[in-house]
């Protein structure tokens, strides 16, 4: 099954068809989610208007975890089955995930100052999220640290798999330890504890961010394939 998509030519054809749909879905959903979150959704009974940061912060944080999970799965496939596209997917996922993580940390900090009274505290949720950001940066640095790109890919894939232990830690940090960060509101036992007028814009944003991720991921993977082709042509010119 996997090897049907291993062919880069088939991947280029398929991703070329998917790209405009992903782009359209991402733009429409994020635009609708932002409009509903910023203008339609009510203010919170405690936080007032500051609650609107949530519509950007939470999708970013979810996608930070999603991108890392995708990167770890792709790295495992690349290590075990030596699937060439899996390696490209992992490599292309890292910078996107790093951006999501950075934005989650930034927007969280902007919310923290008015609500908690501090931009940053070293509680388990915030610290593990910062570790995730460094894992992304470490992955990218390690990938590019070798002269032989296949060795870099292997080392980085192992780092991605080792770092995956951090993902459940982030998710459950608010349940396992006392943290300043509030516990989960949406994905938890007993259903969401967030009013449906606020949940809908949040879900729109989350799905929109998901499409955004796959849009940018496919773009980056296509770029990598083109770059590889150019490298091959140059090599042939030098040796031929």
């Amino acid at each position, binding site marked *: 099954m996997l090897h049907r998509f291993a062919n880069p030519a088939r991947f280029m054809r398929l991703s070329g068809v998917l790209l405009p749909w992903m782009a359209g879905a991402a733009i429409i959903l994020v635009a609708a989610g932002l409009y509903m979150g910023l203008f339609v959704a009510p203010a919170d009974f405690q936080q007032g208007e500051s609650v609107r940061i949530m519509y950007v912060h939470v999708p970013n944080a979810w996608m930070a975890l999603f991108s890392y999970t995708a990167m770890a799965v792709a790295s495992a496939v690349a290590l075990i089955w030596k699937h060439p596209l899996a390696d490209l997917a992992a490599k292309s996922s890292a910078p996107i995930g790093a951006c999501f993580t950075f934005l989650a940390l930034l927007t969280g900090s902007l919310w923290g100052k*008015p*609500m908690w*009274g501090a931009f940053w505290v070293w509680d388990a949720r915030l610290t593990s999220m910062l570790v995730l950001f460094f894992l992304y940066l470490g992955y990218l640095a390690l990938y590019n640290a070798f002269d032989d790109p296949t060795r870099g890919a292997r080392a980085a894939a192992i780092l991605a*798999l080792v770092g995956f232990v951090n993902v459940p830690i982030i998710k459950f940090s608010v349940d396992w330890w006392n943290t300043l960060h509030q516990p989960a509101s949406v994905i938890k036992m007993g259903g969401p504890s967030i009013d449906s007028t*606020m949940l809908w814009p949040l879900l729109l944003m989350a799905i929109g961010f998901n499409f955004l991720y796959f849009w940018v991921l496919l773009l980056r993977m296509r770029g990598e394939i083109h770059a590889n082709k150019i490298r091959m042509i140059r090599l042939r010119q030098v040796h031929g």
Partner: protein
Amino acid sequence: MKRKHKRLVFVIIALVLLGGAVGLVMSAFEENIVFFHSPTDVVEKKIKIGKRLRLGGLVEEGSVERKGTRVMFRVTDLVNSIPVVYIGILPDLFREGQGVVTEGLIKDGVLEADEVLAKHDENYMPPEVADALKKSGKWDEMSGAVKRPGPGSGSGAKEEAK
């Protein structure tokens, strides 16, 4: 076994062992990972006087006394409570019945805090819904929310609705 199967088994075993090791390390360091201690922790474990401490819990209903910028209140986990003194500006979310994390030194059973952080809970709703819940008496069933609607526990809109 084919080579790729060997690699698969190796990766799974390595991840399980790593997960177990990290789990053990973190349970051993639990004391250092928790961000704050509850009043019961402080009472039971007799945390040393003169050591900096973060105390977290709910601001006890009716315990807040203000004298200028000097605020006195009690932090409770509904079992034990510890008095706190703080001089400074409180965060917006600070109110009676709400979660709070205070940091400072315990002297004579009183925490002299130099930092007070408000802890937000996981409940998000518009003010009208909060009022409706209070009127129908379902407010207390929500975990982590204000336990009793007391004086000063909400915004102006909520006060009017009562």
